[in-house]
Each structure stands twice: as C-alpha cells, then as structure tokens.
C-alpha cells in the first residue's frame, strides 16, 4: 500500500505590519514550489489581517494552487497546496 506523507509548513504572521502576510506567503510559495506542486507539502498561514483572506487566495489561485480559508478563534488559517 502506498501512503504519501504531506509536510505541513506553518507561518504565524499575526500582529505584523501590512503587507507582511502576503509577502511572506509569496516568498514561501516560491521557496517550497516543488513540494507544493508535487503535493508533498502544504503551506499554512496564520493571520489576523482581514485583507489577506482575499488577497492571498486571489494571488495564489492565479499561480495554480488550491486555497482554503478557515476562521479559528480570533484569527484566520489559510491553507495552500
């Protein structure tokens, strides 16, 4: 039986300056491009920036990645890949 493990790479960007969330996300996507494309990794961005819940999915979908946004307590978790 083939089981494929998916590495979860998480970044907590709560309480940081705008546009740190979007910039960090784009940089990390580029850094882990191969693993994200192959399905070997997922990127989780934890943010309290409301604008990022629309700008990140917009940008990332254009790059061909799946994105989900979920609210957890008083912040958001954006899962990419």
């Amino acid at each position: 039986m083939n089981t494929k493990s998916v590495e979860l790479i998480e970044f907590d960007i709560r309480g940081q300056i705008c546009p740190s969330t979007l910039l960090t996300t784009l940089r990390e996507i580029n850094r882990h491009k191969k693993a994200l494309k192959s399905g070997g990794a997922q990127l989780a961005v934890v943010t309290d920036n409301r604008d990022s819940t629309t700008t990140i999915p917009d940008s990332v979908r254009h790059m061909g990645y799946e994105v989900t946004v979920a609210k957890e307590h008083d912040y958001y978790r954006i899962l990419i890949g």
Partner: protein
Amino acid sequence: MSGSVTFFIASVSLLLGSAAGFVMHRYDFCIAGMFRNVFMFRQWFMLRILLLLIVVSMGLFEGARLVGLLSLYPYPLLGSASLATIVGAFLFGIGMVLSGGCVVGTLYKMGAGSVLSLLAFAGLLFGSAAYAEFHPLWKTFATQTTLSPGVITLPELVGISPSIFVSVAIVLFLIFCIRFHPLSAWTRTVVVDGYLQPWKAAIVLAFIGLLSYVLVGMPLGITTAYAKLGAGLESLFFSQHVAELSYFQALPLDYVPPFFEIAIRGGAGPQWDAVALVQYPLIAGIVLGSTLSARMLDEFKLRLNAPRRQVVSVVLGGVVMGLACRMAPGCNVWHLLGGLPILSLQAIFYLFGLVPGAWAGSFILQRFVLK
C-alpha cells in the same frame, strides 16, 4: 463656544467617525495599502476602489453645491497649492507605507487591536508636535513657492464652472469602467464573516464625507488634532516652550458652521477650541467604530508579534507621517476624499507628491524591513 454648537458638531463628528471606522474595518479600507500594493504586487484593485470613492464624492459634493446644501465652498482650512505640499506629500507617502497605514488607517487598525498601529499613533503625535519647531521656516518656503496665492481650486484657476470638470470626470470614469472593467471586476470572493464589498464601502464613505461637509462645514479631516494632542502632551513637561511656539498660537480654523450664526475658531495649540470640537470626536469615533466591528466579529485581540525591524519601521514611519501631514498640510482623507472631489489645487499637488512617496516607501519596506 455656545453649548448647542459644541453638542451638535461633537455629536455629528462622533457618529460619522464611528460609521467610518466600522466600514473601514469591515473592508480593511487602507489607503496606504491601495498605493503600496500597486508598487509591491502590481495589484490595482484597491486603487480602483479609491478612484470610485473619489468620483462618487465628486458627484455628491457638486450636486450638494448646486442645490445649495454647501454653505462653505471651498471649505475651511484648504490653502493654496505650493511646492511645500508636494514635498510634504512625498514624505507622507514614505511614512504611511513604513507605518503600515495612513493617519486614518492607523486609527481603525488600532481600534481593532493592532499594537503596531498604536506605536505608529505615538510616532504620529510626536512628529506632528515636532513640526512646530520649524514651522516658521517651512511657512516661508510654502509662501515663496505658492502657485497662485488665494486660488484654491482648479475651476477657480481656469475660470470654468466646477460642474463641467465634474461632468467630464464622471463620463471618463464611466468609459473607463465600461471599456476595461466589467461589473464582476468590482467584487471580491467573500470568505470571511462581515466582509463589506469594497465598492459598497466606497459609496458609504462618500456619503459619510458628504454628510460631514453638509453638517459640519467640511469633509473628514483629523491631522491638526494630532498636532494638538501632541502639543497637549508636550505641554505637560514643557508648557513654557509650547506657549512660545508660533504654530501653536495660530488659529487657522475660523468659520461659521452650517445651521449656526456664530464663528468658531481653533488651531493646533493644546487649548480646547474648534479643532478639538470637530476632530477629537472624529478620531475617537473611528477608533470606537472599528473596535465595535472587530468585537462583533470576535476579531479584537491586542497582539505584538512583529520583528524588531518592523517595530522600528512603524514608529519611524509614524514620526515621518506626523511631520509630513503638517508640512503638506493634510493627509489622504483630507486631500483625496475631500479636496480632490472639489478639484482643490492643493489636493492635486498632494497626489503628485504622494505617488512617488508611496513608491519610495514600498522600496524601503521591501528592501530593508520585510527582507
């Protein structure tokens, strides 16, 4: 000042500020971000929303003027355009990007619990008060480089009715929308609770600006109050020095508010006057409105999780922005949402300085702060 004027203006400002703060938090209406995202991410969406807000405000202000709802036109505190406006706006553009929000953005973000914005606010107070130290020199520079002394708006300068300019601007905007941006390009896919579509936020803010103009006598503006608050804090330690500074003695706001017959006066000095009456409730309202929105969405939380580099950037950005908003004088909300809709020359000059300033701020932020 009589009790009825005080009560009326303070109540209206507080209510309008609260509504603006609530709306700004729902959409995250960050004007600094609108310019910064163009330079850093080539994202034009937010800037288009700002354009919508300006054009809608143009139509509303001009309509109100034509039916006689605006007792003061142009409104008080608007000056003649000079090179000082461009230089001030350039520095403002740098400061707003480095501090993560402009003068108003800092308030609504602070209201939602951003500790970084609270630090930017402190920087703003310091910078605004520090401007008083070189005000006489800067005033001389502004006077010597004024384009047309006493002329406030573009229609005045060229001798053409504002209605013609506004009509042309609206037609050009409609052509731009029809040709390049279908209706679907004005909405965003909503993934969070309580999100207000940006175009709706723009229209609500345009009406808030109109109400302020009709009821208080001028659109939203808050930057003199930053200097006033800074002067108040400074006078706790250096009262003699504050009392001697000419900038804090001047009373540039001197007007008769709509619906009243007595003049009210005010300036940047620490005393309670017309500036405090109009602008303090507006500042408090924006913070409170945003706090209310954030609490309703269960998003309010005081957080500071930023690297030291970001903390330094935010404080320095706030100081630069505080100095710059006195040098221009004015801020994004005052010029872009109030001045541009009536084609103020100072607002047009302000835009000329702000755009390269936002570019320079984005460059510094990307190169040295978020590297």
